[in-house]
C-alpha cells in the first residue's frame, strides 16, 4: 500500500501546476547552457585558431603601415612638373637646339681655330641629347608616380573599408560604395609588383639623364667663358637659361623617392641581422623568415584574422612536423606560386577545398592579397596556414613590409628564448607575439563577454528564484487546508517541511535534468549543423557548463522556495485554519 501523500501522487495529480514550473526552469537552464557553451566555444575556438603560438614566437615589425610613401611620391611629382616645364623650354625654340644650331652655323675656319668652340658644339649636342632623353623619361615617370600614388591611396581606402567593416560587420554599404568607386582601378593596377620595378627603373633613368643634362649645360657655360676670355666674343650667341636649380631640386626629390622605394625592398632594417642572431640563441630549434599574412574568419565572438605563415618550402614541412600536423588532402604550396595550404577547420570555416581560392579578391576582409589557390588541406591538432615566402616577397609592393621571423624554441626554453629575442630586438621596430600574449588578448576579449554572461545568469537566477518562489508560495497557500489538517491530526511540523522540501527538490531536479537534457540535444544538433561545418569548436558535454553553471538556478529556486514556505510551515497554526469558515 503506497503512501497517499507520496511524491509520486503529488507530482502526477498536480501536473498542471508542476509542469509549468519545470518548463520555466528547464528553459532557463537551457538558456544558460547554450549561452555558456557558445562562450566556451568562442574561447576554445580562439585558442585553437591561434594555437600555433603555443610553440613559436612571431617577431613582427612594429607599425609597418607608418612607413609611408605618400610624401616622397608627391614631392617627386611636383618637381617633375617643374622640370618638365624647364626642359620643354630648354628643348624648345630659343633653347639648346637653337644654341646648337647657332654654334654649328659659325664659320668653319672659326671653329677650326678655336677648340673651345668645338667643345661647345660637343657639349651643346650632349645637352640636346640629354634634354631629349629627359623629356622622354619624364612622361612615363610621372605616369608611374601617379599610378603608385593611386595604389597607395587605394590601400588607405581599403584599410579604411576594413576598419569600417570590422566596426560594423552587418553594414555592407561601405563595401558596396568602395567596390563601386574602386573596381575599375583595382582591375587596372593590381597586382602592383610590376609598377614598383618600372618606377625604380624610370627613377634611375631620369636621375641619370638629369645629371647628364646638368653636366652638359655646365660644360657649355665653361666653354662660353673660355671663348670670351680668349677674346672671341660669343655674346651674339643666345645661351639658353640654365635649369640647374630646378634639376637640383628634382634630383633631390628623386633621391628621396629612391630611398623610400628601397625601404619597400628592404622593409625591416635589421631583420637579416636579427634572423642571423636569433639562430644562435640557446634553446632555439628553428628560425625562419616569415612574410606573414592573414585570413578573415569567424570566431563566434567576432571576426578574427587567422595568421598565415609565409615561409620557404622546408620551413612548411618543419612547421607541420613541429605541431604533429600533416597534409590530408592535396599538397603543400610550391615555390614562388600563389598557393596556400590551410587546416581543415579553417577550410570549413571559409567553405573552401583543394582548388578553391582564398584572398582579398575573394573576401575583402582578407589581408592575404589577390587570390591564392588552395592546394592542400592540413589535418592535425593545430590549425595552420602556409604560403610561399618567395611569392609573397616578390609579387607584392606593400605586402613586402609585412615581414618578420618565426622563432621556434625548444621545449622548455620558450621564456629564455623570448627574453633573449627581446634583448636582441632592443629599440628596433619589432615586437614579439607569443602564446602568453595571445592568450591574454583572447582572455581579455572573452572576459568582457564572460562578465556579461555571468551577470545575465545571476539576473536569470534571481528573477527565476523570485518568480518560481512566488509560484511555490501561491501553490502552498492553495494547500493551506491540507497542511493545517495534517498538522492538526498529528503530522509533525518537520515532517511536513521535509515533505515540501522533497516535493520542491523533485521539481527542481526534474527541471534541471530536463533542461540539461534538452540543452545537450540542442547543442548536439547545433554542433552538427553549424559549428563543425564552420570550423568552430564546441564541447557538448562540458560538465563544467552542464553541471556547475546551471546548478545555481535550481539551487536558488529551491532555497528561496523552501525558505519562504518552510518559514510559513514553522509558523503554521492549525487551529486558525480549522476555524476558518471559507
Amino acid at each position, binding site marked *: 500500500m503506497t503512501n497517499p501523500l507520496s511524491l509520486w*501522487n503529488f507530482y502526477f495529480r498536480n501536473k498542471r501546476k508542476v509542469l509549468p514550473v519545470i518548463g520555466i526552469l528547464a528553459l532557463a537552464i537551457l538558456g544558460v547552457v547554450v549561452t555558456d557553451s557558445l562562450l566556451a566555444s568562442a574561447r576554445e575556438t580562439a585558442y585553437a585558431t591561434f594555437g600555433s603560438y603555443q610553440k613559436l614566437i612571431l617577431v613582427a615589425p612594429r607599425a609597418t603601415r607608418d612607413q609611408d610613401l605618400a610624401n616622397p611620391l608627391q614631392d617627386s611629382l611636383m618637381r617633375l612638373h617643374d622640370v618638365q616645364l624647364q626642359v620643354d623650354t630648354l628643348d624648345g625654340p630659343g633653347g639648346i637646339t637653337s644654341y646648337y644650331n647657332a654654334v654649328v652655323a659659325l664659320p668653319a675656319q672659326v671653329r677650326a681655330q678655336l677648340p673651345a668652340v668645338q667643345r661647345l658644339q660637343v657639349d651643346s649636342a650632349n645637352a640636346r641629347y640629354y634634354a631629349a632623353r629627359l623629356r622622354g623619361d619624364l612622361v612615363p615617370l610621372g605616369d608611374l608616380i601617379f599610378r603608385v600614388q593611386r595604389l597607395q591611396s587605394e590601400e588607405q581606402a581599403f584599410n579604411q573599408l576594413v576598419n569600417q567593416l570590422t566596426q560594423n560587420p552587418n553594414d555592407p554599404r561601405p563595401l558596396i560604395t568602395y567596390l563601386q568607386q574602386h573596381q575599375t582601378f583595382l582591375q587596372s593596377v593590381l597586382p602592383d609588383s610590376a609598377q614598383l620595378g618600372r618606377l625604380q627603373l624610370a627613377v634611375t633613368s631620369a636621375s641619370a639623364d638629369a645629371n647628364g643634362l646638368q653636366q652638359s649645360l655646365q660644360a657649355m657655360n665653361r666653354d662660353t667663358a673660355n671663348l670670351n676670355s680668349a677674346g672671341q666674343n660669343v655674346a651674339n650667341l643666345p645661351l639658353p637659361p640654365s635649369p640647374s636649380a630646378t634639376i637640383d631640386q628634382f634630383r633631390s626629390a628623386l633621391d628621396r623617392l629612391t630611398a623610400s622605394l628601397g625601404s619597400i625592398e628592404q622593409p625591416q632594417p635589421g631583420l637579416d641581422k636579427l634572423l642571423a642572431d636569433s639562430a644562435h640563441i640557446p634553446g632555439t630549434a628553428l628560425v625562419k623568415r616569415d612574410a606573414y599574412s592573414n585570413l578573415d574568419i569567424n570566431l563566434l565572438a567576432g571576426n578574427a584574422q587567422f595568421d598565415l605563415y609565409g615561409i620557404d618550402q622546408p620551413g612548411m614541412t618543419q612547421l607541420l612536423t613541429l605541431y604533429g600536423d600533416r597534409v590530408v588532402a592535396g599538397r603543400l604550396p610550391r615555390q614562388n606560386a600563389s598557393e596556400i595550404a590551410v587546416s581543415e577547420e579553417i577550410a570549413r570555416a571559409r567553405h573552401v577545398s583543394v582548388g578553391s581560392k582564398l584572398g582579398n579578391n575573394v573576401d575583402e576582409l582578407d589581408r592575404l592579397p589577390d587570390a591564392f589557390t588552395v592546394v592542400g588541406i592540413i589535418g592535425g591538432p593545430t590549425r595552420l596556414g602556409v604560403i610561399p615566402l618567395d611569392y609573397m616577397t616578390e609579387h607584392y609592393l606593400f605586402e613586402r613590409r609585412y615581414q618578420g621571423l618565426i622563432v621556434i624554441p625548444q621545449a622548455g626554453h620558450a621564456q629564455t628564448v623570448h627574453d633573449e629575442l627581446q634583448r636582441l630586438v632592443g629599440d628596433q621596430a619589432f615586437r614579439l607575439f607569443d602564446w602568453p600574449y595571445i592568450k591574454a588578448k583572447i582572455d581579455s576579449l572573452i572576459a568582457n563577454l564572460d562578465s556579461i554572461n555571468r551577470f545575465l545568469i545571476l539576473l536569470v537566477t534571481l528573477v527565476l528564484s523570485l518568480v518560481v518562489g512566488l509560484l511555490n508560495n501561491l501553490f502552498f497557500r492553495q494547500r493551506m487546508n*491540507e497542511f493545517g*489538517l495534517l498538522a492538526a491530526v498529528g503530522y509533525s511540523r518537520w515532517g511536513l517541511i521535509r515533505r515540501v522540501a522533497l516535493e520542491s527538490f523533485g521539481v527542481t531536479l526534474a527541471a534541471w535534468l530536463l533542461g540539461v537534457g534538452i540543452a545537450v540535444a540542442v547543442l548536439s544538433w547545433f554542433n552538427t549543423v553549424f559549428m563543425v561545418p564552420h570550423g568552430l569548436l564546441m564541447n557538448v558535454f562540458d560538465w563544467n557548463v552542464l553541471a556547475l553553471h546551471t546548478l545555481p538556478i535550481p539551487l536558488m529556486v529551491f532555497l528561496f522556495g523552501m525558505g519562504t514556505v518552510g518559514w510559513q510551515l514553522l509558523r503554521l497554526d492549525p*487551529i486558525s485554519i*480549522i476555524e476558518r469558515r471559507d
Partner: protein
Amino acid sequence: MLSAKDLALDYRTGSSVAHAVDTVSLSVGRGSFVGLIGPSGSGKSSLMYLLSGLKRPSRGAVSFEEHDYASLSGAGLMRLRRRRFGFVFQQHFLVNYLSAFENVMVGAVERDHDTAAYAQALLHRVGLGDKLLKRPYQLSIGERQRVAVARALVHRPAVVFADEPTASLDQATGHEVVNLLADYRRSGGGSLLVVTHDPAMLSDADRVLQMRDGRLMAA
C-alpha cells in the same frame, strides 16, 4: 481515561483578558459518548482543543491515560494526536488531489493491507463503497464529510473529537454523520467527544455538557 482538572484558557488583548475556558474539570471514560453544547463563543471548541492537545492550557491539567499533557513535548502531543485521537471538523479538509480512499488513508498510522482493507470497509460503512476513487470535488458535501469521518476512524483512535461536524450539513445528513461516529463508539472503538450547537445530534450521548462563558453548566 481523558480527564481535565481546573482547565483554563485565557486570551490576552492588550490589558484585558478573555477567559475562553474558565476552570473546567471533566473526565471522559473509555467508550463513552460525551456531548458538548453551547452557544457560539461559549468556549466549547477551545475546550476541545485543550482536551485534544491542539492547544496548551493557560492553567490546569489535562491527561490521557497515563500521559500528562504538561509533561509531553510538542512532538509527544503530536504523536498522541496522530496515534490515539481522531478528528472531525466542521469542514472536511480533504486533500483535493487524492481519492476518497486515499484521503481516508491520510489518517492511517500504518499503511499496510489490513489498514487499506479497513479503510475500504469504513467507506462501505459510510455508504461510499462505490466512490472509493472519486476525488473530493466529485462528491457531495455530505459525502465529503463522511469521508472525513472515515479518515478520523481509520487508525482506530481511542478518542474521536468532533468539532461541529454537522454544522455545514442538512439535518438528515448531519444525523447520518453523528450516527457513524456513534456506531464506532458502540462497536467498542473508542470514546466520542462531539462539540455541537444542535442538541438533537446528541440523542445517543451518555452525557451532554453545556458550556457558557467558558464554564461548564449543568445540562
